[in-house]
């Protein structure tokens, strides 16, 4: 593998996945967002979103809080400081790689 492509191979694959990238991008701009908003904005089904959130939570990039608003259950998602740092790192890596190209 060439030196240029090696940089891309080190890229964070948790964030690199398009659906997860969309999720963390949204969360980087807000304090928190609920499941419904993320589902609609990322264009995912409930099952898909649950899968991707689980991956992000496993990596420590998001925190998920299940709460209630009145009697309605609500799932709130927040980007953790580690998630924000990972997104910044990812963007920097991508910019560097694209600059070389």
């Amino acid at each position, binding site marked *: 593998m060439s030196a240029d492509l090696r940089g891309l191979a080190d890229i964070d694959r948790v964030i690199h996945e398009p659906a997860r990238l969309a999720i963390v991008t949204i969360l980087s*701009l807000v*304090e928190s967002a*609920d499941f419904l908003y993320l589902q609609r*904005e990322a264009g995912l089904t409930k099952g898909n979103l649950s899968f991707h959130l689980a991956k992000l939570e496993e990596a420590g990039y998001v925190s998920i809080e299940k709460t209630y608003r009145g009697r309605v259950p609500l799932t709130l998602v927040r980007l953790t400081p580690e998630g924000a740092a990972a997104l910044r790192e990812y963007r920097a890596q991508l910019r560097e790689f694209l600059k070389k190209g």
Partner: protein
Amino acid sequence: MTDDEIKDIEKRTRQYFYEDGFIEIAVGILFLMLGGYFFATVALPATSRIKSWLDASFVLVILAGLFLVGRLVRFLKFRITYPRTGYVAYKKKEATPRRRAAAAVSGGVIGAAFSVLLAVSPSVRAWLPALNGLLIAFACHLFARRADVMRFHILAVVSAVIGLAVALAGIGDIKGISLYYGVFGAAMIVSGIVAFSLYLRRSRTDEEGGHER
């Protein structure tokens, strides 16, 4: 995912708060109330107790109005928007001492400039609606740039036009201000209702899999 797609996501996230039009509806109602307030101060006889009370309570009216706007928007979002298209809590901008000072200084300068203008040239009173319209237009323009929402640019133009039209019609001073706020308030409400109907058309209530959100 392309850079444009990411920028699009970022833009839509920032715009989401304004998508339902509730801000304009609430502020439009506030402006209508202001229009009524100014009209009452002019229409009531000088010896009226209510007029004295109104004259003394302008700041209170503004503060109460802003409080009610906040509550109304929050109520409508929790009842209609969040169950329909999801809940977002935006990051609160820190009210640093520097920001507070900047807001106080700019507010003070604008207020002082108006007072000086009126004292030095009383004929400026005839142009108060136009000046008010331009001030609000500038605020709408700044808001439009921050929120990246096109219809706020349109409201900026509408504000300037209404203010100028009222002044050119020879309706100056407080009567003109009252008319300006009444008409522009109605324009904001219309803008908000249009935005709301577009929002309803674009969205649908999520009914899949029960109430989980």
